[in-house]
């Protein structure tokens, strides 16, 4: 069962996405790029023009109730008056299953997500991670052909998100349908997705495998997400890692090409290094050792020179269609 979606919301969105069974498509992009709108339009919660063929059926011609898509919302939207079990059983019940078998199916899915012992709790009595597990169970229990995950890890503790990400990965590997994952997090895109679709201002800016997109990002936003410096040079893009950047207090005497003057705007630990945000003729990031940071007194407001060796720079075509070859 394949998905061929071309959705348009006038003035806001014009996006085309194709997927094969088993695909996990990550939708990334800055706030307002249209990620959530696209997912809501597929679910039928937002009006859109165009078509969304899923195994030959046009979803847009159907009411939300008939689309048989599973949705996990950013804020979960578990029904507060129902127990976790009844939340998960809600889908099967609404599709006409008797109460008993609906609950049995719900229990099975709560077990798979590791929250069977919370079956009788109300959503208010669940932690964020537990609630998200229940929400995932609720979306999967109806065995949808299309699973839509709208920023499922936003708002969760880092550790909880990490565990859940690994588990979700396992479930998605077993899932025979198509998954669309809206995310802000490069890690989600890189670890869970088979394909990454980058949206920018309501349009597709890049499509590729996670590795391609991470290595040669076409948008500033994704470059930031994956932690790369990307500079435009005509219709070519030049990317280099922040670790390859040399920071000094004075203008380097050597090669004039890859050096920029700027002011430190921020400094924060990043792994073993200190990551500097530098603004100036270019907005760049640079990783330095803590020792170097102290020695050079790299505090916000400090003027610095950045340089990078030409051998550390990857140059590639700036056009979206060229990125995936």
């Amino acid at each position, binding site marked *: 069962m394949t998905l061929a979606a071309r959705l348009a919301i006038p003035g806001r969105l014009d996006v085309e996405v194709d997927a094969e069974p088993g695909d996990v498509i990550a939708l990334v992009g800055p706030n307002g790029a249209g990620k959530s709108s696209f997912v809501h339009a597929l679910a039928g919660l937002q009006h859109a023009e165009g078509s969304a063929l899923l195994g030959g059926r046009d979803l847009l011609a159907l009411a939300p109730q008939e689309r048989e898509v599973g949705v996990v919302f950013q804020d979960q939207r578990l029904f*507060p008056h129902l127990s976790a079990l009844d939340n998960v059983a809600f889908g099967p019940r609404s599709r006409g299953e008797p109460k008993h078998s609906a609950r049995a199916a719900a229990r099975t899915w709560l077990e798979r997500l590791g929250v069977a012992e919370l079956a009788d709790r109300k959503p208010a009595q669940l932690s964020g991670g537990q609630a998200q597990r229940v929400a995932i169970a609720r979306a999967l229990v109806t065995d949808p052909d299309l699973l839509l995950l709208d920023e499922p890890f936003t708002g969760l503790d880092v550790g909880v998100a990490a565990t859940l990400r690994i588990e979700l990965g396992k479930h998605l590997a077993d899932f025979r349908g198509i998954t669309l994952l809206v995310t802000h997090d490069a890690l989600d895109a890189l670890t869970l997705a088979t394909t990454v679709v980058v949206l920018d201002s309501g349009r597709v800016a890049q499509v590729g495998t996670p590795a391609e997109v991470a290595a040669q990002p076409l948008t500033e936003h994704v470059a930031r997400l994956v932690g790369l410096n990307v500079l435009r040079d005509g219709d070519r893009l030049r990317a280099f890692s922040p670790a390859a950047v040399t920071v000094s207090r004075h203008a380097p005497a050597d090669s004039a090409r890859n050096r920029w003057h700027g002011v430190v705007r921020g400094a924060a630990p990043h792994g073993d290094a200190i990551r500097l945000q530098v603004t100036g003729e270019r907005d760049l990031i640079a990783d330095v050792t803590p020792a170097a940071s102290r020695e050079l007194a790299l505090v916000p407001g400090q003027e610095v020179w950045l340089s990078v060796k030409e051998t550390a720079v990857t140059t590639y075509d700036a056009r979206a269609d060229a990125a995936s070859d």
Partner: protein
Amino acid sequence: MTGRDPLGRAPWILVVPAVLGAGVLLVPLAAMVAATDPRGLADALASEAARDALWLSVSTSTAAMLVSLVIGLPLAWLLARVDFPGSRLVRALVIVPMVLPPVVAGIALRSAFGRSGLIGEPLLDLTGFAFPYTTSGVVLAHVFVALPFLVISIEGALRSTGSGYDGAAATLGASRWTTFRRVTVPLALPGIAAAMVLAWARSLGEFGATITFNGNYPGTTQTMPTLIYVARQSDADAALALSLIMLLVSVGVLVALRDRWLVTA
């Protein structure tokens, strides 16, 4: 409630009008209690007219509340959830009876449901039934004045719970009716209960529309407010005693319901 408020004392500029506000509401009631002769109260309680009227008031208000719920909840849902042409106009018109003087409400009811009214006349010709002078007519008048309160407060409750859960239910395959039954209504239940209490209370105090539309006859159309009004023409003390009884009954019911429903709303 005890001890110092960590945010500091309440400023007098708020406390003074607040106390005034409470005073405006409570002093007249307290004065009425003080002015009532306890013996008159016993007499009034013993009188059959008072007991009939009290029973009629309570039963018609309850009936009016239930009728209002059956027709008002769907209307509130429609206004809160369905974007139809003219919905703003309908919302504005629905609350008009709230600002109508009660007598005008009575005249409007008569124009529609009176013996020669728009609906009343064909109804009388077809069935031989007419609303005026009947207990059903009292319920109708009560519904007319209580319904707007019920509709706008349920609409508010539905709006504040938002349509996000309705959307989630839809993606799970629930029809709109299933969603209404299993999600929308349960989530708005505290607000719906508060709206029912409000409708009941409004209905209990209703007087002008009822007397204009239905007149006043013991056991059939004479509710407590009507009885008090008529009694006042001849015996002010009896009217006072009856008023006190009504006050006690309404306060009793509201307090009983308050802890359960009103606070959570």
